[in-house]
């Protein structure tokens, strides 16, 4: 299959799927290596950059998805009146940031970093499926270990958590 045809199929699959699709499934179906797949995605990224396109392709974790571009938002808002999602609180965002970089991590560890009780925050993050239990620490009381979900990457549109690691901060 030539590259142009493969890109067309990729677009069609992602369009029909609606949700993000795993690399490995796409490469299996297209019968190409994951490397080739990623190079196709890079090419598509460039093409979607063109002004006459209203959608874009992006990587979230080990998955790829199609979404609308942010600049179309004002028009979508006018026509489709999307419902606003509840935004996360500052406490939730701080807790998530810690879990992202320290996972797997216990509640006690998070609390020692934030200096406050995080029980309620953890519950609401679990309810929103942004974090999950990933196991138990082999220590007295066998405390729960928390980690972030795929949903979490999608929620923030992160290709990976490492993307955040470069953040510069000056004291």
């Amino acid at each position, binding site marked *: 299959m030539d590259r142009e045809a493969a890109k067309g199929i990729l677009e069609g699959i992602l*369009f*029909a*799927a*609606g*949700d993000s699709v795993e690399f490995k499934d796409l490469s299996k179906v297209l019968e190409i290596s994951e490397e080739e797949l990623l190079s196709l995605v890079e090419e598509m990224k460039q093409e979607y950059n063109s002004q006459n396109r209203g959608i*874009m392709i992006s990587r979230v974790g080990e998955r790829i*998805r*199609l*979404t*609308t*571009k*942010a600049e179309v*938002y004002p028009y*979508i808002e006018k026509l489709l009146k*999307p419902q*606003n*999602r509840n*935004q*996360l609180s*500052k*406490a939730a*965002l*701080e807790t*998530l*940031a*810690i879990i*992202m*970089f320290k996972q797997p991590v216990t509640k006690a560890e998070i609390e020692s*970093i*934030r*200096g*406050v*009780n995080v029980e309620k925050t953890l519950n609401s993050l679990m309810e929103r499926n942004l974090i999950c239990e990933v196991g138990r620490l082999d220590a007295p009381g066998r405390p729960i270990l928390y980690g972030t979900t795929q949903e979490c990457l999608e*929620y*923030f*549109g*992160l290709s990976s958590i490492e993307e*955040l690691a470069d*953040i510069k*901060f000056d*004291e």
Partner: protein
Amino acid sequence: MALNVKLEAFEGPLDLLLHLIEKNQINIYDIPISELTDQYLSYLEGLDELDIDMASEFLLMAATLLSIKSRMLLPKERTEDAREEICTALDKEDPRMELVEKLIEYKRFKMIAEVLKEKEEGQSKIFKRRPEDLPFLYEGGISISEVDLDDLISIFARIIKKGAVEEGQSSRTILKDPLPLRIRIRHVYKTILKRKKMGFREFFKENFSKLEIIMTFLAILELIKLNRIKVYQEQSFGEITVTLKEVS
């Protein structure tokens, strides 16, 4: 000192400390601990009331600050042996060190949280597409030949149940279940025990409410699952018959 910021504006004692450090343009690696402690304490005093959960966290930090402050004030330990003195001095960390490390680590996550906030904002402006339903892809994909009304009802019952949960959450109405399933199951089972065999529709009296009908359906489904009754249909469009399952 003007205390025009509420405690709730801070995500905890570390957040408050960072605020004070920033406001006073303090070098985080060389904190004037006594000054900072005073400010922190007068900040707490300025609050009319303190949420008890939050209070303990803020007070714990106050105690930590006071302990650091007192350790800073203590005269350096004197020992006879000069060599030993040097070693002790090297061993002895700056009492502020632990707090500084904590503040720096917390600050890092606070900044990551701010980036996440921006990302969240950005994502709220883009949309995915609703996935396509799949059955159309398969030839004869929609097959109802192996399905009867029971199946359809149980499918719908599941959907209703899901919807009811969501509705309950938004309307905050709590209704006591007036007809527990357990009781309905017992009732249906008693009826079929007595009659051994009956038509599906006979279970539903004309004056049944929606809820009673649904509960009765569910009861029948439950009894099938429990292997107590058998439900079959002789022919398409025919009457559905319910019989007692023979226990062997």
